[in-house]
């Protein structure tokens, strides 16, 4: 049974900022919007363990930090392992009476797509399988941005990156995006969800839920990147919204095995609307766009089958 808390409205988002300005994230960075609202939703009783990547380097340039939470960075591939350690320590110290038993602390790991889908996948699997009471959040900007836009397992089909350049032979990335949610759900976690920075109240509700649920929980966050996707910084939220409106991204949650789409889309926009705003897809031909449209249609169909009714509608031009 899924718990159905009151759906928050925009006015439920706390005014207090727990993520300070002065960080060095790019103009219009989607991950910056995510971090602001993730920290708000977490509230102050959380410990954050961060993987190496854009968010980490841009927010903790010594001697200053943008974080108001206790925050730990160890390396690139081990946010889940580090978080496991923090959580185990709290558990042991509570049992031994060093930390008051009723002290509320949630451990939260945050990593990029590279640190999660690729190099950190093993540590993530270990953390999920062992059942640590940790919320893992991946902000997915679909490439290794911190090192200059190299492809990752999360890079979408046909996207240009610096290691999948468009040339006489190559046409950008040639593999579809890895199904990280499928991998996570195979661990039978009590809660996993996708979020998108254009839909903040949805994000807020899901982070709150994931914090409250005991055990390993997972959130996959869509994270537009202005230089990496070659988008106008003003269009970060627009592009994020279009991802949902075209069905490229679907906001859903899986609570104890129960699947629910949280942002139904009755009339889909064509993927072209999403692709055309991004320089990383500039090279696409009509045939290639049609191919991507087919791939999205298939995924939408799969989701509708899973739900048992049409929650994501057909493309309407």
């Amino acid at each position, binding site marked *: 049974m899924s718990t159905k808390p009151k759906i928050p409205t*925009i*006015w439920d*988002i706390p*005014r207090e*900022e727990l*993520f*300070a*300005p*002065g*960080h*060095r*994230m790019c*103009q*219009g*960075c*989607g991950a*910056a*919007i995510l971090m*602001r*609202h993730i920290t708000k939703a977490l509230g102050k009783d959380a410990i954050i363990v961060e993987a190496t990547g854009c968010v980490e380097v841009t*927010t*903790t*340039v*010594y*001697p*200053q*930090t*943008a*974080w*108001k*939470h206790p925050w730990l960075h160890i390396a690139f591939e081990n946010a889940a392992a580090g978080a496991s350690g923090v959580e185990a320590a709290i558990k042991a110290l509570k049992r031994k009476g060093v930390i008051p038993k009723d002290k509320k602390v949630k451990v939260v790991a945050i990593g990029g797509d590279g640190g999660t889908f690729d190099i950190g996948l093993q540590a993530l699997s270990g953390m999920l399988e062992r059942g640590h009471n940790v919320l893992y959040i991946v902000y997915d900007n679909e490439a290794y941005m911190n090192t200059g836009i190299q492809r990752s397992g999360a890079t979408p089909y046909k996207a240009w990156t610096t290691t999948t350049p468009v040339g006489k032979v190559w046409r950008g990335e040639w593999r579809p995006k890895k199904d990280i949610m499928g991998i996570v759900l195979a661990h039978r976690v009590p809660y996993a969800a996708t979020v998108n*920075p254009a839909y*903040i109240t949805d994000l807020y509700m899901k982070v709150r839920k994931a914090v409250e649920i005991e055990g390993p929980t997972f959130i996959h966050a869509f994270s537009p990147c*202005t230089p990496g996707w070659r988008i*106008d*910084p*003003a*269009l*970060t*939220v*627009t592009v994020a919204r279009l991802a949902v409106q075209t069905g490229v991204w679907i906001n859903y949650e899986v609570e104890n095995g129960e699947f629910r789409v949280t942002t139904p889309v009755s009339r889909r926009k064509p993927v072209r609307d999403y692709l055309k705003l991004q320089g990383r897809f500039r090279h696409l031909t009509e045939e290639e766009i049609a191919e991507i449209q087919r791939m999205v249609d298939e995924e939408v169909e799969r989701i509708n089958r899973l739900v048992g009714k049409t929650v994501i509608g057909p493309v309407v031009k």
Partner: protein
Amino acid sequence: MTAQLPGWKSLPPGAVITRPGSTVEYKTHDWRTLRPVIDQERCIRCRLCWLYCPEGTIIELDKPYTTKAGRKYTRTYEINYDYCKGCGICAQECPAKAIKMIEEVR
């Protein structure tokens, strides 16, 4: 550049930063080429610019405002220009078209 900074003897071990939120000391206004300006007359207090600003530099104030047409608001949205990087998301997302991006002159 480095001579005025503290030496190893006085720094806390392990590079631990003990001042939460201290990036506020680092102003990012000079990243900006365009400056967002809110027209308080047009603003309908919907909170969206505040919501989407990546810098969290749009401030929500309990400051009453009455428009020339007599519409009363209890809140006002103002931009803290110390950190605004001029991305333009606020202007793009404003449903009332109350934010204009104007050229930054320094």
